[in-house]
């Protein structure tokens, strides 16, 4: 009659097996928790951009979300960042499920929790202007990104249609010198325009101007509002 315990011990001795060190398992566990945390953080950053885009679009577009046609409202949300938020929520679950006892949590619960945390944390990040910074960074480094997003910078870079935005550099009488979002310099006639900035447009910094294009780099303003 074979004795299993003796066979097992003999094989362990013969193969010179030793238990793998505990630090290996602790490390593996920590890595997956970190990946899950990182996913939630990236999801939060993505949501901060979504929030930035939606709020910026509605504010600088001069219309509330409820007044917008559905297409415009949909354009206000950068779909790519919304998808990123969801992908990161799913990857958070993948991380959690590979931790020691992660299998005990329901996938949908983990994903819902990751989305909820991403939304909460993303709102806080938006408060610190992280959404705009991330968008600006990606737009500056990935040209393809600009063509797939319809964030207000684009909306306010259509002087032929009466929308011009950028940084107010200086004022000379009723003429405003403006550096548009695409980097071109403009001369804007402010005479008679409704100005709703706190202080002068130069003090405001980025402004959104409505009006009419009058030349290659000149514009007649009807209204000048803060771009925020």
């Amino acid at each position: 009659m074979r004795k299993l315990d003796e066979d097992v011990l003999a094989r362990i001795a013969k193969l010179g097996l030793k238990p793998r060190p505990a630090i290996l398992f602790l490390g593996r566990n920590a890595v997956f928790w970190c990946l899950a945390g990182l996913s939630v953080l990236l999801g939060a950053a993505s949501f901060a951009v979504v929030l930035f885009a939606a709020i910026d679009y509605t504010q600088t577009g001069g219309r509330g979300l409820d007044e917008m046609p559905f297409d415009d409202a949909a354009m206000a949300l950068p779909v790519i960042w919304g998808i990123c938020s969801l992908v990161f929520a799913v990857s958070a679950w993948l991380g959690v499920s590979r931790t020691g006892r992660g299998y005990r949590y329901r996938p949908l619960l983990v994903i819902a929790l990751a989305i909820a945390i991403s939304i909460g944390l993303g709102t806080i990040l938006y408060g610190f202007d992280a959404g705009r910074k991330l968008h600006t960074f990606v737009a500056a480094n990935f040209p393809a990104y600009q063509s797939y997003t319809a964030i207000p910078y684009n909306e306010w870079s259509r002087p032929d249609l009466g929308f011009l935005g950028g940084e107010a550099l200086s004022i000379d009488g009723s003429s405003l010198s403006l550096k548009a979002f695409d980097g071109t310099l403009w001369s804007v006639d402010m005479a008679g325009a409704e100005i709703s900035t706190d202080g002068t447009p130069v003090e405001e910094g980025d402004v959104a101007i409505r009006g009419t294009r009058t030349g290659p780099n000149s514009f007649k303003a009807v209204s000048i509002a803060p771009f925020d």
Partner: protein
Amino acid sequence: MTGQESQEDAELVARALRDAKAYGEVVRRFEFVLKRYVGRILGGHSGHAEDVVQDSFIKAYVNLNSFDRRRPLAPWLYRIAHNEAVSFLRKRGAGPLLITGEDGQLLLDRLRAEDTGFTLCQRETDGGNLDAAMADLEPLYRNVITLRYLEEKTYDEISDILAMPPGTVATRIRRGLQHLKTLYASRLDRERDGHAQT
């Protein structure tokens, strides 16, 4: 599984980590239940159960430090043995689990005792039809029913063994029983039709 048993398991594992010979006690304590369980998974290949269990114990020894000592040892060992058995079957391209007539009768008795709705058959012994119904059942349901009604594991233990949320275990058991009842009833109908024709 009581807290005291969990503590005993933790002490046993601690001893085995210090001295490989103490691991023999782990093998002796769990070899019977693991052989029985692996035999149930392997079905027609149950002659290989001892080899699979031996491999499982070796794998468990190498990964002993990954065992959470606040938890009972049995589900952790069952999980390793389950994975080894499934891997064994996969390598051989083997078919579904086929429990023996003895297990079929045991399963039927326990299903009746737990008021699971298995009152279809008036006969006291009809394990054979249940064996066949179990063989037709999808593996995801067969696994949980085997663990719940043949190995008598709790939902929590099954969750640890099959690495799935306890809620999913409960759902699979409920659905598995419904499927099993349907399959079992159709077996009985076919048997009845056969008798009527003769």
